[in-house]
């Protein structure tokens, strides 16, 4: 069982990323996944997070993730908004980070003591492929690097989710991001 936590800002498609991921593993990999949505009260602007649990066998547990194996951060400024992305992190937790700077990635790695940080400029990749800086699809490409899901499944799930036309662009965005992702 893998437990993931996605952090981001409203409008970045955090919840969508979670949904697509669960589709990718559930439908395209014959595994199981559930999303555990945290729904806030604010109309706009609050940091958003979503939890996903992935497993080979049907998932029984239905509660929030407290000790994530994978932490996905879709906006590297989120820590300035009072969000502690390291909450519940354990020895083997890895980080997937959307950032334009390797420096930031290293900083995260050191500050929070991650074994591995996967990073990519997902916003830029998204901009390149879909013309809008919404990094939900591209960050999933980066996530594939962790082995939680295959990039092919992500591509398929994106096409399914967004429909053929938009889906393919998003799939390309994910693939591109997957290829650009670096692990440190």
């Amino acid at each position: 069982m893998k437990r993931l936590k996605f952090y981001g800002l409203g409008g970045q498609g955090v919840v969508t990323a979670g949904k697509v991921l669960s589709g990718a593993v559930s439908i395209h990999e014959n595994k199981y996944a559930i999303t555990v949505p945290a729904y806030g009260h604010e109309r706009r602007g609050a940091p958003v997070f979503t939890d996903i649990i992935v497993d080979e066998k049907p998932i029984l547990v239905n509660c929030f993730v407290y000790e994530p194996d994978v932490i996905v951060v879709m906006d590297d400024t989120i820590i300035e908004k009072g969000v502690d992305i390291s909450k519940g992190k354990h020895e083997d937790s890895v980080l997937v980070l959307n950032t334009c700077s390797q420096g930031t990635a290293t900083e995260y790695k050191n500050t929070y003591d991650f074994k591995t940080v996967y990073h990519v400029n997902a916003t830029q990749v998204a901009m390149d492929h879909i013309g809008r800086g919404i990094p939900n699809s591209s960050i999933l490409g980066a996530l594939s690097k962790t082995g939680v899901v295959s990039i092919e499944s992500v591509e398929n799930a994106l096409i399914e989710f967004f429909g053929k036309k938009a889906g393919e662009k998003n799939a390309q965005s994910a693939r591109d991001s997957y290829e650009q992702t670096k692990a440190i």
Partner: protein
Amino acid sequence: MIDIKKESRGYIAHGVSACAGCGMELILRTVLNALGQDTTLVIPPGCSALFCGFGKETGLKVSTFQGNLENSAAYAAGIRAGYEVQGNNHSTVVAFAGDGGTLDIGLQSLSGMMERGDDVLYICYDNEAYMNTGIQGSSATPLGAWTTTTPTGKPVYKKDLLGIAMAHGIPYCASASVANIKDMTKKVEKAKSIQGPKLLHIHCPCPTGWGSAPSKSIEVSKKAVQTGAWVLYECEDGNIKLNNPPKELKAVQEYTKLQKRFSGINEEQLVALQMGITKNFERLMRMQAE
């Protein structure tokens, strides 16, 4: 007693989580500025409840009760009565509710309040749908507008709140809009000064629900007024007065084209929408003439 953690101008915190460009935020600020501290608010669920805050934090400095969606007028009537029997006739008791909380589920308690003549100021900010639950259609949604529950455009006209209020013969009711802040302020002040039930119906641009640019909230409201999609008028003791009405109405497209909710409107709906608007404007002009 409100414990000020971060000060603000006026009676509302500056940083509240209403969307960028939200008309309702501007309305509530304007209203409270006009009413002052000696005010008690009843706010039902809906976007305006954001101001009530979360947990022990609030964005309001005036005494407030967050009621239910359908009974703001009744809560307000009760509060008014409670003040009255304690000799407090000075505080203004205000219900501040959305179109859903007013024209749909809350209409009955509002009607009761108007009929009984309770000394309450009822303000409906009208963003023309249930925004807080995710843009579902309300009876205030205009004909042809998309919402999640009118996916091909609403098939019927918007309910006429002021028409209903006037049928109740209340001493004062008026429409207002963020397009004209001065006019709104004046109307709030007038309403405050009048004894009995008062109703303000305020057009409220909602970029999120209307699919308009946040920066265009005022522009779109002005277009509403210029096209007659929103008519500014007041009715005092049964006498209708239009406030600075446009000499000639612009075509409704001037208004609709700024908003994605109208992007799917078909020709037939558009004609009907235009017709309804023109008829309504003419009717009001006629009623004013009387």
